[in-house]
């Protein structure tokens, strides 16, 4: 079964500039290949050229004083196994990554391929939203850094006709920050029905800073800013966790689809935010 019937040529450019030039000249007929999962599972008959990034040196996980820097062709497995992720936010981001999809798919899914489209079915995007990731995009002669929220305000189709995602940077958060995420899914290779992630800075029990994200609602991931405003500045207690669960249930923006009603998604969202907050105070149950 020839999946990509109209593909005539493959390119493995030696530089980002070369990759971008091929992309620009292709008149929309070339596609950048990350892991190639979307490209092979949802074949687009208009595609005639494949651009592989294998030679661009974009498979890396590095750190400096402020950031963990992840190259676009790094897979979920690469990131989850990187030594720097073992203790990053108490290993919670690593756990979130190793819980999505199956090992077989995690070996193939790349960060760039997950970021370049705002897919509702990506579980990586809710985590990146909560972590306030910075997306690095290159047009060859320049590299531009986008805060994740701003990145997804772009018309991605237009942006990605002349640019490629080259990496993602994650802030190194100090010990006052905690991360937690939850995912509702029926089996490993099914699309998650809901996922939520929270990053919170808690000092002397007060929630100083917080980001909350919702994914698979169904719709692309987004920041739950109403929820953030509800929690910011409050003392984190079990009662607050309970109250916030109820607040989430009433205010989170989720929709129904053939898999799940809106009410059920809201209910689970409320349970998830409550449980993540309880986990932050070490008082589950």
């Amino acid at each position, binding site marked *: 079964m020839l999946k990509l019937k109209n593909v005539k040529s493959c390119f493995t450019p030696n530089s980002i500039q070369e990759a971008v030039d091929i992309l620009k000249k292709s008149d929309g007929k070339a596609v950048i290949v990350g892991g190639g999962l979307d490209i092979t599972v949802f074949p687009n008959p208009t595609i005639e050229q494949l651009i592989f990034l294998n030679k661009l040196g974009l498979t890396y996980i590095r750190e400096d004083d402020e950031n963990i820097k992840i190259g676009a062709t790094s897979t979920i497995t690469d990131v989850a196994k990187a030594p720097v992720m073992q203790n990053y936010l108490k290993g919670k981001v690593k756990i979130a990554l190793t819980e999505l999809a199956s*090992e077989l798919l995690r070996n193939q899914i790349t960060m760039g391929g997950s970021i370049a489209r705002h897919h509702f079915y990506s579980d990586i995007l809710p985590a990146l939203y909560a972590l306030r990731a910075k997306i690095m995009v290159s047009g060859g002669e320049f590299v531009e850094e986008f805060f994740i929220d701003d990145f997804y305000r772009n018309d991605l189709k237009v942006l990605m006709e002349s640019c490629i995602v080259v990496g993602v940077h994650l802030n190194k958060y100090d010990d006052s920050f905690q991360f937690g995420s939850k995912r509702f899914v029926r089996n490993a290779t099914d699309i998650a029905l809901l996922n939520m992630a929270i990053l919170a800075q808690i000092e002397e029990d007060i929630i100083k800073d917080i980001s909350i994200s919702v994914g698979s609602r169904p719709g692309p991931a987004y920041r739950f800013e109403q929820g953030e405003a509800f929690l910011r500045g409050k003392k984190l207690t079990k009662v607050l966790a309970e109250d916030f669960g109820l607040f989430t249930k009433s205010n989170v923006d989720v929709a129904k689809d053939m898999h799940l009603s809106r009410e059920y998604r809201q209910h689970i969202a409320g349970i998830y935010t409550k449980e993540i907050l309880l986990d932050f105070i070490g008082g589950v149950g």
Partner: protein
Amino acid sequence: MKVRYSINGKKKEFEIEAGEVLLDVLRRNGYFEVKGNCYMGTCGTCTVLIDGLPYTSCTMLAAKVDGSEITTIKGIGTLQNPHPLQKAFVEKGAVQCGFCTPGTILVAYALLKSNPDPTDDDIKKMLDGNLCRCTGYVQQIEAIKLAAKMLKKGDG
């Protein structure tokens, strides 16, 4: 276009279509031990090892992995000299129709390479992407634990 692989230790060169997936290239060239089923990355029957890691070959563009080492089920053991995993799958009754078995064993092989002493949970998690309609998974888990023991004893 041409691609070169090392398949089960033997150097091979194939003429492929630019948009072909690895599963099709392998089967067209006689590697029928690699099974195709969903073609969507959901069942795991088409699993092969690429440079030692398991992947679904139905979602892997053949041109992307030009130059790689590919291992199919026949690369880890033969009828005459089966790998402990292959022996254990037979011994524990973990094979019924056998359609999922090449993929499942290759994923288990990769697991035991990186984690020689897996817990039931490690095994279940690793088998997340390999569907089996027949066995109910219990015998597969038993077989993988038995193989782990055999490998530790240097048996096989």
